[in-house]
């Protein structure tokens, strides 16, 4: 009888152990292969100067891709680059997606609507191109989100053309931010001297790297999967 009692006690111990193991293993199974969830924040700058407005359909495609990729808790903002971009008024739409998936979907629909309205209503481009001001505005927004991964997408030819009196010739602090230049088109004078194109890219790369950020160029928009690292 004592043996049976011992056995029953042992069985109970085993059962407790099994339950704990099941709990842990199921937990591990649930989290298997998943890295800790990281929040992402993306700020997209769209060049609206000159003939670059013709590229807006591509920008809309990128925005749709971002909307489909980003999840609850992520932040997204869209702003235009015009003559003086260091301005909140240039932000066309911004959102931090709700923790509830259904609400996040509604926010995405609203965001998409804003983007469509912007692209359809934009007729004339700005006279100047203040990319640095836009980047500074983006840095402010991204730092406020306190996201784990911060990205600035610059949809521009990277040719800065500042109005007279605007000062942008100073280092920018992009520490912890990845700056991605998208669809950097070649200008007419680039065809005359291709080194201008390279110099333009190199100058921006140097500026970003010196500011503590990371720099990437993606001209092939068919490979949008490389745009934002999927978690």
């Amino acid at each position, binding site marked *: 009888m004592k043996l*049976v009692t011992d056995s029953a006690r042992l069985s109970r111990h085993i059962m407790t152990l099994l339950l704990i193991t099941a*709990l842990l293993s*199921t937990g591990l199974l649930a989290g298997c292969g998943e*890295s*800790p969830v990281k929040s992402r924040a993306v700020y997209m700058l769209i060049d609206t100067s000159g003939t670059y407005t013709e590229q807006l359909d591509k920008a809309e495609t990128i925005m749709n891709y971002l909307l489909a990729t980003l999840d609850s808790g992520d932040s997204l903002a869209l702003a235009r680059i015009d003559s003086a971009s260091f301005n909140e008024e240039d932000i066309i739409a911004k959102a931090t997606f709700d923790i*509830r998936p259904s609400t996040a*979907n509604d926010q995405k629909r609203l965001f*998409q609507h804003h983007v469509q309205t912007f692209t359809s209503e934009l007729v004339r481009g700005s006279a100047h191109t203040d990319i640095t001001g836009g980047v500074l505005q983006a840095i402010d927004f991204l730092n406020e989100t306190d996201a784990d991964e911060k990205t600035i997408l610059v949809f521009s030819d990277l040719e800065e053309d500042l109005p007279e009196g605007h000062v942008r010739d100073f280092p920018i602090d992009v520490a912890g931010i990845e700056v991605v230049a998208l669809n950097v088109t070649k200008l007419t004078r680039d065809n005359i001297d291709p080194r201008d194109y390279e110099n333009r890219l190199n100058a921006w790369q140097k500026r970003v790297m010196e500011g503590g950020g990371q720099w990437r160029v993606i001209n092939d928009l068919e490979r949008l999967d490389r745009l934002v690292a999927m978690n």
Partner: protein
Amino acid sequence: MFQQLLTVWSDSAAISAAIWLVLLVTVLYLGRQQAHHLFSTTGRAVFTALRLASRSVLKLEHRLSQRNRDVLMALGRTASEKAIEREFTRVSTLVARDLAHYPSLHRTLADAIEKIEADYQASSLSAPLPPAWSDVVDTISALPKSADPALNKILDNIKDAIEDSHEETLKAFQKATLERHGHLAKMHPQWRTLKTTMGKVETTLDSLEERTRMIDGQMDRYESIRNNEDAAANSLLSSSLTQFFISGLVLIIAAMGGLINFQLIALPMSEMVGGTATIGSLRMSDIAALVIILIEIAMGLFLLESLRITHLFPVIGSMDDRMRQRMIVVTLTLLTILATIEASLAYMRDLLALDRAALQQSLAGVGVVEAQFRWIPSIGQMVMGFILPFALAFVAIPLESFIHSLRSVLGMIVVGVLRTVAVALRLAGNLASHACKILAHLYDLIIMVPLGVERLIRHRSTAPDLSDTTTAAKTKNDTDDAPATTAKTKRSRSTKVEPVLTDTQEVTP
């Protein structure tokens, strides 16, 4: 440093190395006896220690085996007792159900027999047979007509009277016969009643006989277990292993079901607790879904425990019936509520998936397509969400079998490991002993030159004096055989102890 040591005797490295070698060989030769003793002692010590360890492990293995067997037998005895008790309960139920009515059955039988007997008696009372008046009538008819009309009339009257009387008697006889047939006809239902009643009794007795045979079988098994027979132990072990694998298989199936359940409710849970909060690397929504599933399993465990199907929690098993019934109601209610919640979550999951698909289509620039028969997967998911918790509740049954059989399987595994360790220790001891012997031989190999010289000198010193040969040889043998004798003695004392290395014999010519 090495270079300095190499050239300490001469600038030529070769000469210096040769000197070092000579010195080394000399030192080794001088310390040969001590070195051999060292090897021998070390080998023996390692061998003895490992053999001791091996024996201890084997003893532990024997104790564990015995304990495993005792536990297995005790469990088997308990199971057998329960099985026998169950059979007796069944017999008791059978007797109470069928044979409890035996007095009324007996009364029915007695009544039927009594009625049959009465009918038989009634049928045996035959009516008086008609007298043989037909002969009288024939005789009177055959009489020649007399001339006397009065006589003829008398005879005719007699004849008519006789014929009337005959007819009446015949009618009475026929009536009596009909009545007798009536009585006999009444006996038919009584016979059928008798036959049916006897059939019932036969069925009951057959069932009782079958139960008795089963009890006999169980008693034989119980007796075998009580006698601690090997056959019973093997049978119990085999049964335990079978239980282990079958219940393990069912548990794997249940785990798969749990995984599907998890997938059903993980997404909609993010709508409740949010999809961004995490604990470690796990999303809060996943943890919440997991907790719901585990609560369902726990409720299932308590429900089956309250129903006394499983016996994992003695506290629940020992509750009084009223409390147990309350617990059944509570657990079943909670399980139903959880199943309903899961069904609604599954439906919400479907809605969320639809919403997400519509958004993706919108973002991709294609029109939103309304899928036909979309309600089928929706209902399917809801039904799955409702049924899976109840299905998971039954995991308690294989879990109990698994836990009970795990004790035996773990015992077997530990016994196997202990046996392997014992063999490995024994092997390591032997290897160490033989390695020491090999080292001793290698030692001699290094100093083979001085040993050869020694052998030559001894040979020369003993060769001229033949008379001393015997003495010398004897002395030598006495000297050399001493360790061998010791070794033999030691070997004879304990056959398993390795012999002392008899190196002197090898160098002696």
